[in-house]
């Protein structure tokens, strides 16, 4: 057993976990954050993507003890209170989800993708960068649409903020 201490969605949490415990299981079982899902055993599907110190990580590829000391954001912590994150809002507006199982990982991966491309995104880039996230319901059509729309919204937001700062 090892002690695990993390910042999760802005809250300090700690607990003991078997050494073999994956981060995803620690989040789901120890912390009750069941929004992060497990869809495969081989780090292919991306249903478990969370942000670890600002980067998208498949939480099934990381041991909980490895993440100790990190700051983590899960799907439960993405919205600002009642205000949806622009990526969440875009997934709803553009029908980027059906059964909802891959959705948390998709949204976390998409948020990271948009953050890494401040220059903006095009369809080909979005499709290429979604390589690590599998959806069986939507055929990706509306997921791609939602990510492109969110990318535009977030760019506008960033510009607005830059103007305010100036």
């Amino acid at each position, binding site marked *: 057993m090892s002690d695990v201490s993390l910042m999760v969605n802005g809250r300090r949490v700690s607990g003991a976990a078997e050494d073999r415990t994956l981060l995803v299981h620690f989040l789901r079982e120890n912390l009750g954050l069941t929004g992060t899902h497990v869809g*495969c055993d081989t780090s292919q599907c991306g249903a478990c993507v969370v942000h670890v110190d600002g980067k998208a990580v498949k939480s099934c590829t990381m041991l909980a003890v490895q993440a100790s000391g990190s700051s983590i954001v899960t799907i439960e912590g993405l919205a600002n209170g009642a205000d949806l994150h622009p990526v969440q809002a875009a997934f*709803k507006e553009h029908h980027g989800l059906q059964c909802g199982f891959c959705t948390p990982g998709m949204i976390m991966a998409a948020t990271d993708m948009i953050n890494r491309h401040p220059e903006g995104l095009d369809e080909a880039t979005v499709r290429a960068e979604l390589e690590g996230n599998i959806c069986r319901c939507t055929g990706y059509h509306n997921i791609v649409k939602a990510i492109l729309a969110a990318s535009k919204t977030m760019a506008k937001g960033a510009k607005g903020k830059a103007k305010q700062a100036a």
Partner: protein
Amino acid sequence: MGIEGVGARVARKEDKRFITGAGRYVDDMVVPGMKHAAFVRSPHAHAQIKKIDVKRAQAMPGVIGVLTGKELKADGIGNLICGWMIHSKDGSPMKMGAWSPLAVDKVRYVGDAVVVVVAETKGQARDAAEAVEITYKELKAVVEATKALEKGAPQIHAEAENNLIFDWEIGDAKATDAAIKAAAHVTRMKIVNNRLVPNAMEPRAALGHYDKAEDHYTCWTTSQNPHVARLVMSAFYNVAPENKLRVIAPDVGGGFGSKIYIYPEEIVCLWASKKTGVPVKWVADRTESFLSDAHGRDHVSTVEMAFDKNNRITGLKVDTIANLGAYMSLFSSCVPTYLYATLLSGQYDIPAIHANVRTVYTNTAPVDAYRGAGRPEATYLLERTMEAAARELGVSPAELRRKNFITSFPHQTPVIMNYDAGDYGASLDAAMKASDYAGFAKRKAAAAKKGLLRGIGMSCYIEACGIAPSAAVGSLGAGVGLWESAEVRVNAVGTIEVLTGSHSHGQGHETTFAQLVNQRFGVPIDSVSIVHGDTDKVQMGMGTYGSRSGAVGMSAISKALDKVEAKAKKIAAHLLEADEGDIVIENGALKVAGTDKNVPWFQVALAAYTAHNLPAGMEPGLKETAFYDPSNFTFPAGCYICEVEIEPETGTTEVVQFVAADDFGNIINPMIVEGQVHGGIAQGIGQALLEGAHYDASGQLLTASYMDYTMPRAGDLPSFKVSTSNTPCPGNPLGIKGCGEAGAIGSPPAVINAITDAIGIADIAMPASPPTVWAAIRAAKH
């Protein structure tokens, strides 16, 4: 149409919980004292069980129980059944071999469950499962249906000689043979429909909880039809009587058919919970899903299509061998028969059809309905054959199809179905226009300049949905009726709960069903709750599959709404001192037509429950129930056109354009309907280009993870151009046909027709993966 009514693109109500991580799937459920199960599965495709030694496992840390099939049988738990009886053409019933939830003396496929271990943690359960010692005597295995029928093939079930389950036929053999004999041209093909794994993103899971105090069981399960699960587990598997068994299917992460069936694991979790005295949860990992979820397709067919000298089809003869795997899954028998051969007329006027279908046991996972279920197999066979015929006859594929279209309705085919409405020419025209079919030659030439092979292919599909009149399916062998139920509860303040037997696992029922209520009563959709997926809340229902929730499920709701409306109008007429016949519902109020006299909806509801001033003799309350049994199947149809570019050096195929023109009848929410089509097309393109379940000759599944089984990813697909036309379905009150499966049905032949067109070859196997395409290009050159 109001902004939330029928026909409006309303964003989904259910999305809020899914996009914030608040969805509740079975694996998210925790009950006090809950422990974890792991299954010991057969590593052999075919073997006798000589000995099971659980001693070492029982002594492992955290282990609560290690249970075998012998104990399960001793407790009277029944075998799994197939619920649709098919008779062979000689009149004999199908040969159903025994399927014990835990194998007792023989295993028949890799993944067959043998022992269950219950332990404190999932990790401990798995560790202990590794310590169970089972001695097997390996037997020869057979994985291909054609080989399983050969003399001397391994005998899988004692009940089914030569592994033949049934040998069934439909149609007029004599008339069809005569048509072929007299034909000016006959197109002959061998058609293989590859085996697929449905792969809902949420793996199957079950949580069984036996409550000793109440002598009552609760099962949380990843099911498309919790009521059917309760019925079957109660009536056939002796888990518990229905009044002692509650089945809950909460949020379910996709189904595509694979979550219709009642699998061994949910039965075992319930039984093990009583046996061990703790709630027992099992969640499949992905490899377990690959091994043990029901697979789809796997047909091998030959077809002969006869034409007269004017290129009109005069006859169609089909011989199909369908692989049903190691055991007969719940609806496995109806898929290659009544859901397949009855659609072999397609969109065409064919005077004579005969189909023979043999179903076969093999040492592979059970095969059952997967999105489309029989109809993709029929469409693939017909549309590949039409394409080949057009090329052989030297005519345009579009015009050959158009010439043979059924144009007047109702149309009785020679294979049971009576098509009620359609306009196949309209879909063909729409698809050709949207794809700029006329401009293809230019695009092909431009691609050739870049060294790419460009091809175009179409597919005109029809399907039968909204299954079906209960008496009709009963006469064809179904063990259940296929109606749907609804209950509409208007609360005293006017908010509404709709209880439905349909189950939503991605289809958006919480939104579309509420839109229907909004359309009728003007109540905002946020004031309408759709309740489903719990046998304690909804009395009975048949669930969601076969694109039936709109055509059948919503028709039941519509019928219940009719009854609520009638009573509400009576109350309003009484309150307004008007004639009942003069009351209309507009903008959330009941009005006397042509006047400004009105009473708001919520006041009518309140009046129903205060019961201070109701018409003489009227019971208080405003709640109505309806059961709706369809009068016919519905017949969605459409035309899909696919354009591909192939890189000849690598064999890589890119779908550069995909157009879908569908006729789904009336549509409640176009946004959701388009989403269903997108998803279906992706699965169809997946089948054509990427996906295939492969067993080696010894019966080991070689494609048992996402490292081996190629799921379509975003980069494998284009954005799709979809549109709809509308010939309303005359068979149900809403004019709905259903849209859930069309994409997966119509798309594979369009893709393969495009690839064969690009390369200039007659046929190519699915999945047309890069090595297959590369080899085909090489072979075509030499």
